């Protein structure tokens, strides 16, 4: 492309940002350089509006081997093994092209984990769509699921857990957040810091084409009416076979010990990899764009630099090893080309057709300016905390069936069966069997890791601080209910336009929520992703922070799932928080009211309840464990009954309105079942943790019967429960 002059605005930069570039360079940037600044200083790559706020997140822990700042966080799990994990969003591409957008979202996060030297062993995803009764939302939802399946299945990494929530606020801007977990040896951690002047820079993987050019900039704009048609070229097209080969070849290359640094070429492609790697290492780099393997020979320097073609890595290797390393990639059928080398002069220089087209300090490009945005509490929030005094009467049994049918609670079986969730033969607790998936680490038996993903935009729209704390609390509860101890968190923060003070206020509240919750539970945040500009002509999406939490299980034979296991177990409630209908799923689903103030988690109580549950599981006391979240205790009990195909007869301890007892929500409550002869042990254990315990009833039979204050309120057959819970089957099959 022979652009003589371009305006900063045309590459998404402001006048003041242009002036900052001139200040850093001591001259005007060339048009090509300005384009590189455009992608690197996009919100997606530069975190301009978020990085100052994110500083508050707790990111240290004794077992942390790598915190934020690299491609993913790494945490020790003992015996020389570690796990790497990270979550990323691929929202805008999925809005425009659901299948390819979601598929490349999977591919991108896999390479982040691979960049740490880890073998990807699990994927989890958190999805948000408009109501599935709406044809457009259905098309997006089925396309996204098919895209995740197509890429994840072919690449051989199991998709083991996930969540789907629907709300009209996501109709035009769905969310596709994907987290990946990888396994590695401590001594094999790889990093992106380029070092060693003279070391060759090796391009490896697929060829560079004209897809996804400027994708990072596209992700940093609001979607508009014509996005679906105009922005197709900004969406990358994935090749999962190349992704799979890249995993194998990269791990083989890393095993030689000759790889000094590596990074994937994802958002902002070659621009990001070259500038960040040299900036992190405090070195310079010379690259020759003519040596980059291309799909079409006519590509210009700007296209080669900004292409976001998938399945590409940039490596710095020890001088002299380049032929050996290249041979590994070629053996796997991939491209490998030495495109340059490291220099000592701290300058990033690019040659194209025998002239120098870029020459600037890498940090100037890699370190986007940071902004302290204006925050302003949205007016009328407190008004939405008021719930109506009287609600129309509903039949509790029908209400329970309706909650089970709702897309937030209904079984996601038809989705999970489209994903290979068993490949790599680690999956001990499969998706849907518990709030968290459990993967055995057969390299270091009897260990296992658990992973869960949680977020609730409905609650965060009402109170972003409390809603976010509830998401962290629920993730920790999901881990506890399989018997896992939390190791770390990765977050994906999905919000609207940060330049809108009200949006920025919700973002800041959310980050405070994660900060306080993770500090209280002593869980480090090891990295994550911010996705702003999730807006459509209708306005911003509900504020949607999503957390993925990873936990450790020391002995995989001591775990629990949510299903009732046998007749005549006692059903027990651990935790005494008082349920409330404010901001409940019941109010939304049954009465169409998104109102009320979400509960404030008391993390001291929460931690006690969770450690009691964990200890009960690891001591082998429990048959099942299920935390009470959306839909309250009634939904939790129904899910345990459905999963185990075993009924129960229980009496709830609350002297309140029946629907509050059944469907009211409160954090820090876990419904468990166990053999009656183990009950005394559980009572002692609960007392030791200062946790209240109430015996609710017994499992057995083929009906779920719930009494409140001596009245039978719910009496439903398993068949009715199962049918309602399977409501999403027809959407996804």
């Amino acid at each position, binding site marked *: 492309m022979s652009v003589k002059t371009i305006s900063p605005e045309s590459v998404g930069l402001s006048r003041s940002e242009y002036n900052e570039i001139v200040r850093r360079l001591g001259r005007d940037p060339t048009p090509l350089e300005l384009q590189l600044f455009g992608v690197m200083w996009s919100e997606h790559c530069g975190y301009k509006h978020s990085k100052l706020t994110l500083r508050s997140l707790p990111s240290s822990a004794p077992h942390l081997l790598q915190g934020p700042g690299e491609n993913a966080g790494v945490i020790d799990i003992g015996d020389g093994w570690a796990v790497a994990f990270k979550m990323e969003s691929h929202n805008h591409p999925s809005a425009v092209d659901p299948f390819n957008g979601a598929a490349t979202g999977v591919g991108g996060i896999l390479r982040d984990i691979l960049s740490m030297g880890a073998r990807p062993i699990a994927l989890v995803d958190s999805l948000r769509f408009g109501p599935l009764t709406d044809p457009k939302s259905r098309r997006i939802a089925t396309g996204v699921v*098919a895209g995740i*399946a197509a890429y994840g*299945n*072919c*690449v*051989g990494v199991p998709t083991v857990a996930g969540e789907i929530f629907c709300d009209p606020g996501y109709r035009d801007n769905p969310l596709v957040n994907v987290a990946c977990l990888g396994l590695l040896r401590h001594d094999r951690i790889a990093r992106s810091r380029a070092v060693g002047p003279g070391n060759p820079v090796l391009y490896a993987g697929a060829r560079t084409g004209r897809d996804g050019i400027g994708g990072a900039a596209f992700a940093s704009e609001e979607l508009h009416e014509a996005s679906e048609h105009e922005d197709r070229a900004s969406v990358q097209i994935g*090749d*999962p*076979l190349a992704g*799979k*080969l890249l995993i194998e070849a990269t791990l083989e290359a890393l095993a030689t010990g000759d790889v000094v640094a590596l990074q994937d070429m994802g958002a902002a492609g070659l621009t990001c990899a070259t500038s960040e790697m040299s900036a992190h290492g405090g070195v310079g780099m010379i690259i020759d764009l003519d040596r980059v393997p291309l799909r079409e020979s006519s590509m210009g320097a700007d296209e080669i630099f900004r292409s976001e073609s998938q399945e590409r890595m940039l490596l710095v290797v020890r001088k002299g090893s380049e032929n050996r390393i290249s041979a590994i990639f070629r*053996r*796997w*059928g991939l491209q490998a080309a030495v495109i340059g080398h490291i220099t000592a002069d701290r300058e990033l220089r690019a040659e194209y057709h025998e002239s120098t087209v870029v020459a600037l300090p890498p940090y100037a490009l890699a370190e986007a300016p940071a902004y302290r945005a204006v925050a302003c509490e949205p007016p009328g929030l407190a008004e939405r905390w008021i719930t109506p005094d009287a609600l129309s009467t509903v039949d509790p049994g029908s209400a329970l069936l309706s909650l089970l049918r709702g897309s937030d609670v209904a079984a996601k079986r038809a989705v*999970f*069966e*489209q*994903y*290979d*969730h*068993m*490949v*790599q*033969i680690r*999956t*001990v*607790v*499969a998706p*849907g*069997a518990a709030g968290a998936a459990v993967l*055995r680490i*057969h390299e270091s038996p009897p260990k296992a890791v658990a992973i869960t993903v949680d977020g609730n935009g409905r609650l965060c729209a009402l109170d972003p601080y409390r809603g976010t704390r509830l998401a962290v609390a629920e993730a920790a509860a999901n881990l506890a209910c399989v018997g896992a101890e939390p190791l770390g968190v990765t977050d994906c923060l999905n919000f609207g336009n940060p330049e809108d003070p009200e949006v920025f206020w919700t973002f800041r509240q959310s980050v405070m929520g994660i900060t306080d919750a993770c500090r209280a539970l002593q869980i480090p945040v090891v990295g994550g992703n911010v996705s702003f500009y999730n807006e459509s002509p209708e306005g911003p999406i509900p504020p949607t922070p999503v957390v993925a939490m990873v936990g450790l299980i020391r002995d*995989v*034979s001591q775990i629990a*799932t949510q*299903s009732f*296991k046998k007749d005549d177990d006692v059903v027990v409630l651990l935790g005494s928080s008082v349920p409330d209908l404010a901001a409940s799923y019941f109010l939304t689903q049954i009465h169409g009211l998104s109102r009320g103030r979400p509960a404030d988690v008391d993390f001291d109580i929460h931690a006690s309840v969770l450690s009691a549950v964990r200890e009960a599981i690891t001591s082998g006391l429990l048959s*099942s464990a299920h935390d009470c979240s959306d839909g309250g205790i009634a939904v939790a009990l129904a899910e345990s009954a459905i*999963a*185990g*195909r075993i009924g129960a007869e229980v009496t709830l301890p609350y002297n309140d309105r029946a629907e509050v007892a059944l469907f009211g929500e409160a954090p820090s409550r876990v419904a468990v079942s166990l053999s009656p002869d183990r009950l005394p042990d559980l009572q002692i254990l609960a007392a030791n943790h200062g946790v209240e315990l109430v015996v609710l009833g017994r499992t057995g039979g083929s009906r779920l019967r719930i009494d409140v204050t001596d009245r039978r309120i719910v009496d439903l057959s398993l068949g009715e429960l199962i049918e309602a819970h399977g409501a999403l089957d027809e959407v996804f*099959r």
Partner: protein
Amino acid sequence: MRFGVVIFPGSNCDHDCIHVLRNVLGQDVVELWHGDSSVNDVDCVVLPGGFAYGDYLRAGAVAATSPIMPAVKSFAESGRPVLGICNGFQVLLEAGLLPGAMLRNRSLQFRCRPVEMRVESTRTPFTWNLREGQILQMPIAHGEGNYFAPDDMLDEIERTGQVVFRYSEGISPNGAARFIAGLCNQAGNVVGLMPHPERAAEAILGSTDGRLLFESVVSFLESRAVVGRSSWVVATEQRSPTYDLRPTTYDRSRR
């Protein structure tokens, strides 16, 4: 015994098969590279699951033409045992080592879940330790498992006893003709099946029925070594029919 697991570009279950054969069954395992032209001195060849060559064109179509396949064919022709699991089964079909073809699942979707299947033939090295009618539980995970052959070919396959496994839940999870889940060649030494025995070989994963197939071939190879004769038929006559007919229970609570 020495097993050779073929690694195609895009094989995903290669490590899983190697883990089960090596660490669960204590066998010697070598990796066979798709680009090589020999299977060396192995006693049994396993074509693992996955998406060989991305399953571009058709599942297994490109892999069937890879350099190692002529060696696999002559290994099979010599009467020695070959097992194709899922994508490996598709490769065997495309290579003409087994009759018929795979269509996309009738649902047009990938399907991953445990299924039950019935052992229909014990004349193969992988089933000679089992009983006809025995029900096995193991997972499927595929998008193209809808087995198809013309009616006359199906009749012929049935007549010659080449149906080794049939889905036994009254429904094909993928639409496969006559509920066919697994097949053998006429000689019986080449077996392909869609379900994944390597995913059902350890109790922690919910079922150990898959291990029976591997144990079967190990004892087949061992007895053949003892008998010292080259024909697999001789060995199958030596089998000891002492297996429990009940399936090990799949722990549905974890599924």
